[in-house]
């Protein structure tokens, strides 16, 4: 039964992709992506801007659900039915595709000179010699808050952890608003918006992340367990039945003005802007006033070329355009919260996006701790972090137990270079 269902799904996807390419006389490029929220923006702004300048090349954007993207893409690439252009997840997921020959080497692309090595790091081989995706954007974590809610209870924007919990207490006491909109049903909210959001402050960003990869720090060290302890304290401030609250539920609670604080990634900005609320943002609070703040400024999305594409020349034309400052400007403004990785500075008009990007000046940026190298094996550290972060907030596991489980899982396959 499962066998036929899976095969049916693959067959259907290959037929659909086939129809897409066979229709027009013009060359049609298909883009695979997990950003289904952006469908409208691609169709109305980005693709028309490209097609206007490049007659003869049509582009269609066909996204799939974020959590299914990697699996679906791998299956489609193996079956030879994937689109010409594919959105690249950062680090190992894409690296492995490149090593298997599924993605084209793009080192020679003219537009690559528009990106710094740091920007390219997430899509470059370990030795730094080959780059296989054109960097598009990074996302920054922080907290978005409802200004009206803060005014109502007379709360100041918190700078330290203590102030943060004081604000939450005030909001809870007032009772008009759910203090914090987050659920644990989908699990990745707890990990990505929770642990990876506040964590860098404790493990000191890049310093801790690199030490973890080098093996000099462990997930059971104080600096990695402490964020879990803080996370566990969030529980009483979450909405009723947060255990069954999904990610869209959280988004809706916040955009309907029922919640005060939203642990966010900057990608939420364009959605939240449509709600007509007065919103502000603050970076993850620090332990003591005056401490260095750390933010997660995560290389998130890039675009690569399917090595089996029949239209490689046209696809490269598109990728050159993606690497251009023109695309950077359209993308960053159409999708505030996706910050361009292009070396050319991009003017952004969105105040909330400006607020997020301004933290780059004052805080130390890092990327999500689980993405580089540490999610290469089984059990997968990122997926385990999802489960354990949700467990910590639900109270199923203590912070110490969760950290131990993660470290044990990592130890079972990862042997850091001595």
């Amino acid at each position, binding site marked *: *039964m*499962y*066998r*036929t*269902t899976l*095969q049916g799904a693959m067959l259907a996807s290959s037929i659909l992709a086939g129809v897409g390419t066979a229709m027009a006389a013009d060359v049609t490029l298909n883009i695979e992506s997990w950003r289904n929220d952006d469908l409208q923006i691609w169709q109305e702004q980005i693709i028309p801007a490209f097609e206007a300048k490049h007659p003869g090349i049509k582009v269609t954007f066909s996204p799939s659900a974020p*959590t*299914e993207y*990697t*699996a*679906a893409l*791998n*299956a489609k690439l193996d079956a030879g039915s994937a689109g010409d252009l594919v959105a690249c*997840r950062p680090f*190992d*997921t894409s690296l*492995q595709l490149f090593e298997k020959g599924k993605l084209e080497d793009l080192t020679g692309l003219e537009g690559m000179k528009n990106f710094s090595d740091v920007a390219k790091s997430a899509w470059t081989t370990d030795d730094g010699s080959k780059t296989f995706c054109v960097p598009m954007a990074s996302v920054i974590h922080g907290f978005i808050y409802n200004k009206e809610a803060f005014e109502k209870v007379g709360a100041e924007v918190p700078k330290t952890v203590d102030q943060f919990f004081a604000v939450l207490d005030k909001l809870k006491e007032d009772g008009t608003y759910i203090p914090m909109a987050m*659920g*644990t*049903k*989908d*699990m*990745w909210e707890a990990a990505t918006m929770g642990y990876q959001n506040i964590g860098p402050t404790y493990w000191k960003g890049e310093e801790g992340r690199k030490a973890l990869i080098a093996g000099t720090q462990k997930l059971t060290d104080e600096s990695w367990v402490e964020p879990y302890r803080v996370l566990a304290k969030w529980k009483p401030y979450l*909405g*009723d*039945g*947060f*255990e*069954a*609250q*999904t990610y869209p*539920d959280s988004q*809706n*609670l916040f955009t309907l003005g029922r919640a005060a604080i939203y642990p966010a990634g900057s990608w939420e900005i364009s959605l939240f802007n449509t709600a007509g609320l007065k919103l502000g943002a603050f970076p993850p609070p620090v332990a003591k006033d005056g401490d260095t703040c750390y933010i997660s400024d995560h290389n998130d999305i890039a675009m690569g070329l399917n090595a089996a594409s029949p239209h490689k020349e046209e696809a490269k034309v598109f990728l050159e355009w993606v690497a251009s400052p023109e695309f950077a400007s359209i993308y960053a403004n159409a999708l505030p919260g996706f910050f361009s990785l292009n070396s050319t500075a991009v003017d952004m008009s969105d105040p909330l996006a400006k607020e997020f990007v301004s933290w780059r000046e004052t805080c130390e940026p890092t990327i999500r701790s*689980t*993405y580089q190298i540490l*999610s290469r094996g*089984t*059990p*997968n550290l*990122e*997926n385990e972090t*999802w*489960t354990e972060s*949700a*467990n910590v907030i*639900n109270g*199923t*596991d203590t912070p110490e137990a969760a950290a131990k489980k993660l470290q044990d*899982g990592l130890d*079972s396959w990862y042997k850091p270079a001595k």
Partner: protein
Amino acid sequence: MTDLSPEQGTEAARRRPRRWHILVFLAPAVIIYTAVMILPLIETLRQSLFNVVDGEHVFVGFANFATLFGDPRWASDFWNALGNNFVFFLIHMAVQNPIGVALAALLSLPGLRFAAFYRTAFFLPTLLSFVIVGFIWKLILSPIWGVAPWLMDLVGMKSLFGPWLGKPGSALITVSLVSVWQFIGIPMMLIYAALLNIPEEVIEAAEIDGITGWGQFFKIKLPLVLPAIGIISILTFVGNFNAFDLVYTMQGALAGPDKATDILGTFLYRTFFGFQLQLGDQSMGATIATIMFLIILTGVCIYLFGIQRRIRRYQF
């Protein structure tokens, strides 16, 4: 049949011409079934004996199975999924089938009004797609927007409501009951058909002997529909151990919270296709698929050789 020598064959052939039409009529089913079921099955069994070592696809014997049962992490994931699958199955057996039999018994009562309407209504969820069922129930049970908390509030039972899908203790039971709700129509229909098959004379004879009502159901009707119940049990078993869709649509591929709803199907999916940053591992996936196949095969064999032969059948 045809390996007679030519001399002997001519006589036989004249009397009994080769019945080519049998082959012709069987061919489409045999070819399609072989192509989409048997070959993939053999390929899966074969792949479970291979793995990628240093970039080479090599034969590893039963090493994959050793990993699945020997490695503490793989083993704990596997036993968790298998255990959950048994709970899933037992809830179906304990809830779906008795209710299905009861509904069928009620529907077959002579003189029941609107019987056709009830029959259709009970059977309708079975026709719905998993995605729709999963989505509807997720919404109904949502603590934020759902109608379940509101309805329970109306009858003063709001305090008993909980975020059932989000709690490790209740998630599996909730998902199982949703599945029961969806599939209740199948046992109901099969039993209903079996009940209608019972000849009037038997019922009349029972009535003359003074057996009516409950006694009639338990002493006359139930023994007569036992073979149908056996068929339903085995269908439920196969369906449950192949289940995947409903858990996937309701709880996602990680089958949360804390893998509380992870069954063999979702475990296979995560392993074979990967999830988020985890890449698919086709060899281990095939290994799990093989184990699933063996579990189902064992279950079906136990039923066929152990139970079905002992069920007494009545000829009318």
